[in-house]
């Protein structure tokens, strides 16, 4: 990132990191590893919400003058045995209430949520399948995606069951990888002559579904009006939408909660090739999402953000969409016992050069 921006290492005076496999190291021991002195550090352990939350905090730090150039990095390696232990020992609730039943990790909570969503809104497996097929088509132009071969509805439906109604293609493949962005003031980016975007607004909401036995909303609805108001933009102005797709049901819920369409209706606007809510094409999960690229731990929480930045700056690694100005990115993380706890979203805008 520094090389691409034309920056020397000492010019980076802030570092934000998200990684579960960084342990036992931390953001500050990483600073020593990189041999850099820093004015501002942050470590965000919020899974799929980490990227947006971290960039939001970095932007506030830069605005306050605490740091001038902050590198925000999400990265993880994947070691199967460590991963299983992590998921089974995730929290005290998980240890006592989920892992003893074989329910460590995210698949069971999302299977239960998917079934509840299907029954509440009369949605079928095929409706999720269209999203997976659309994203897989996007991934075919994206060399970094681990899964690029064509996915048919027949193959989607016939995939081996994981935790029904979830089959193999509803679940992200764990992998290793990293994503990152640099956060700085606009005049610095201009002086460097690098492509950039504006962070127009961002928001986070945690434990939003408390007190609800079987929640079907997770926090975006609570802040979406404030988010769009802060950005000065309407949902209809979003050209690019990158929603967090650890499981298809979550992608649909984010589209609905963030006001792209009505609750329970997202799949009605989805075909195997397009997402067209309100008679307007929205470019959705243009890199194929985690369902195609794989989930590189907490880096999965940065993927939508980096893909949106690439699209808006004309630097997409495949699938570059034309005439795109605004992007909505959302993240979701921390499946504790039976539900996810962290919801975040950001609106970014192409800089007019």
């Amino acid at each position: 990132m520094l090389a691409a921006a034309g920056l020397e290492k000492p010019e980076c005076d802030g570092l934000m990191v998200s990684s579960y496999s960084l342990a036992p190291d931390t953001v500050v021991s990483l600073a020593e590893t990189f041999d850099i002195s820093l004015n501002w550090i942050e470590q965000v352990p919020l899974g799929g919400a980490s990227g947006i939350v971290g960039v939001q905090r970095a932007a506030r730090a830069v605005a306050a003058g605490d740091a001038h150039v902050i590198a925000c990095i999400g990265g993880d390696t994947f070691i199967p045995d460590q991963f299983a232990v992590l998921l089974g020992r995730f929290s005290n609730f998980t240890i006592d209430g989920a892992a003893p039943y074989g329910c460590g990790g995210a698949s069971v909570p999302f299977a239960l949520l998917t079934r509840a969503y299907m029954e509440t809104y009369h949605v079928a497996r095929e409706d999720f399948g269209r999203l997976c097929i659309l994203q897989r088509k996007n991934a075919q132009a994206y060399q970094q995606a681990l899964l690029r071969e064509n996915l048919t509805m027949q193959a989607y439906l016939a995939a081996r069951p994981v935790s029904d109604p979830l089959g193999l293609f509803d679940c992200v493949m764990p992998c290793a990888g990293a994503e990152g962005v640099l956060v700085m003031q606009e005049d610095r980016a201009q002086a460097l002559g690098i492509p950039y975007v504006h962070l127009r607004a961002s928001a986070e909401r945690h434990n939003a579904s408390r007190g609800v036995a079987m929640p079907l909303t997770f926090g975006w609805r609570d802040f979406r009006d404030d988010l769009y108001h802060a950005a000065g933009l309407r949902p209809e102005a979003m050209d690019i939408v990158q929603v967090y797709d650890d499981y298809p049901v979550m992608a649909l819920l984010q589209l609905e909660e963030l006001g792209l369409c009505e609750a329970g209706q997202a799949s009605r606007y989805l075909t195997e090739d397009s997402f067209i809510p309100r008679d307007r094409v929205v470019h959705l999960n243009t890199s194929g999402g985690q369902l195609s690229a794989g989930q590189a731990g907490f880096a999965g929480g940065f993927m939508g953000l980096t893909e949106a930045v690439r699209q808006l700056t004309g630097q997409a690694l495949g699938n570059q969409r034309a005439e795109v100005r605004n992007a909505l990115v959302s993240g979701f993380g921390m499946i504790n016992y039976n539900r996810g706890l962290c919801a975040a979203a950001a609106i970014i805008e192409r800089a007019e050069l």
Partner: protein
Amino acid sequence: MRCGSYHRACRIVTESGESERDLSTKQLARTSFGQAATRFARNIAGQNTGGDASGNWLLQGVILQQCGTCTAEFYPPRPLCPECLSEQLQWRRNDGGGRVLSITCLHVSVNTFYHRSARDIEPWVIGMVAHDDGPVLLVFLDKSVTAVGSRIALFTAPDIIGESVIIGVREGSLAEQSAGDIAATLVHKDEN
């Protein structure tokens, strides 16, 4: 109150012996909260069966925490009351039932102990249940319960390491028998 006791031997033999079993079952180990719930359940089971409940046991109901200040009941266990933040908590056996919120049949688990490739385990059913008194529970669910919204009876039994787990079955005269059948699979699923 109905209560039963199951005394089938819990024989555990894996291909590479005891160490593999230790490694695998370590992932089932509870925190101190979960262990306290087990001790409470085991005590009641011992009293009700006239023995020490050292073997397999089955208890109607579930072990919840109750706040001594505001009487709220909650689960999973925690160090303070989520309603009033009081630390004056007690364990309580609640023999109420619940309603099924959602169901899944689990074919693949991340928990090593449940890896089907390592053991001959059939896919098993997990239910998310709204207890009549509020808490939401993940339970081993009777596979004949297939409809969301079903009323179920709840039981507590030991798993393969002797810690308590919750079992949900159809309400009615066969409830205890069904719960016992599921309890038996829990302690024997590791047997080759």
